[in-house]
């Protein structure tokens, strides 16, 4: 079954690529707007040979990784703190509910004014967007702590710190990992958005340049690269999540947030 699944998937991918080749060749859409797969592939080869492409890729990844790291550490620390300190959770709930849905792109004009096309512009957007993912999942996770387990720990005289380490953190970890996975893909979206709209160096800026110079096949090639990058991040994050949860009794469904 697994083998045939892979075969079917490969066939689907091949059909997708063939369709991308045939549709412009048959004149169903203008080649100038939608170059055939082979043209995109050759543009991709040219990109890969270009040193500037690798610099751009490196810039995007730097913004992504740095932003994600800041967001995850801040999200986890704030999440645990808010849940452990008495009354803090109730007091912050309304503020979190209000700030979370604010679209991070609203901050674009501010980022432009404050930091221009620097890396800090990218980081502002990436951190704002991914922080909430991690925070909210951490809060869910801590809420899921079995009261019996917590009371048991209390009755054996474990202190706050010990309870956080041995009861709260293991329960919350699966949720935190889900948060990290969601944050990883959101961070990529915002990193590339910042480059595309603000013009910070990276893949997004390269796409914008290709667009303004009418280099359509190059633009498609770069979009494919951004898709592959997203794919690697998704698959990687899911693998890490599964590893981290291997001990967990059930890999839970996603919390709808």
């Amino acid at each position, binding site marked *: 079954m697994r083998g045939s699944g892979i075969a079917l998937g490969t066939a689907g991918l091949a059909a997708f690529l063939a369709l991308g080749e045939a549709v412009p060749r048959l004149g169903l859409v203008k080649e100038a707007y939608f170059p055939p797969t082979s043209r995109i592939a050759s543009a991709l080869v040219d990109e890969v040979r270009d040193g500037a492409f690798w610099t751009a890729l490196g810039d995007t990844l730097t913004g992504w990784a740095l932003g994600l790291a800041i967001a995850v550490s801040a999200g986890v620390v704030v999440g645990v703190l808010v849940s452990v300190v008495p009354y803090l959770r109730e007091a*912050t709930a309304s503020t979190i509910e209000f700030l979370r849905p604010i679209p991070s792109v609203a901050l674009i004009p501010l980022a432009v004014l404050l930091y221009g096309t620097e890396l800090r512009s990218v980081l502002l957007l990436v951190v704002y967007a991914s922080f909430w993912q991690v925070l909210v999942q951490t809060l869910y996770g801590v809420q899921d702590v079995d009261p019996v387990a917590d009371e048991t720990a209390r009755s054996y005289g474990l202190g706050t710190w010990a309870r956080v380490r041995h009861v709260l953190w293991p329960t919350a970890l699966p949720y935190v990992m889900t948060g990290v996975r969601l944050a990883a893909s959101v961070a*990529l979206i915002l990193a590339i958005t910042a480059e595309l709209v603000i013009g910070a160096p990276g893949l*997004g800026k390269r796409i914008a340049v290709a667009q303004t110079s009418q280099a359509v096949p190059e633009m498609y090639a770069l979009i494919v690269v951004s898709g*592959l990058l997203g794919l690697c991040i998704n698959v990687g994050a899911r693998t890490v999540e599964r590893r981290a949860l291997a001990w967990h009794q059930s890999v839970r469904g996603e919390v709808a947030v």
Partner: protein
Amino acid sequence: MRRLLLRTVFVLALPVLLLLAWWFASDGSTDVYWPPLRTILKTFPDVWTADRLRTDVFPSVLRLAAGYALAAAVGVGLGTLIGSSRRVRAVCEPVLEFLRAVPPPVLVPVIMLFAGIGDTMKIVVIASGCVWPVLLNTVEGVRAVDSVMLETARSYGITGVTRLRHLVLRSASPQIFAGLRQALSIGIILMVISEMFAASDGIGFTVVQFQRSFAIPDMWTGILVLGLLGFLLSVVFQLVERRVLGWYHGLRASTRRTP
């Protein structure tokens, strides 16, 4: 009564505190980029007049609604189709995984090639970004319909449209809503970005105009409006979700009580 009072205090205390902090920290600020909150609030009613709501906010929201609705219809429809057959799913999976991974904002330049810079472009951009989370979550939801429920339906001759409406889609609805939720935040992002790229009206367009003309307090009010819009849409979504998925939350609560 006392509990209600306590709750109100909890809900309001921190926001009020934060606003006060902002007010006093920024009061007397001479930094052009961080105008005093007093100035921002004073500018607000001058900028966001009824006229502006009609010419900028309304078109934005309309485009978002159109794109989002399109994405929801296509996502749920295709997702049900793909999710119902193991074979189709195996064929489509790698392609869908790739398409979902493409960061939606990079679609803006591509769609501009095809659809110009009008309303169509923006609606298509929003729809093509929102469709993936809905589609993939629907596939998962439809795939995971309980086997006993499917057999129950079969043994009672529940088939066709009735089966789809009362069993498959209802059973997948928690996942579909999780997808719609993700799609909503992507939709707002794309609404703003598509207007920043090329537009003659809309909130995103207006905010960028303020920034470019260095009307800083006006720009700040624009950021506040975007924030309020995001918050309002999320409240509306939650109301709808709570109504449609009331059974699901009840079910979860009841299984939590009796493990």
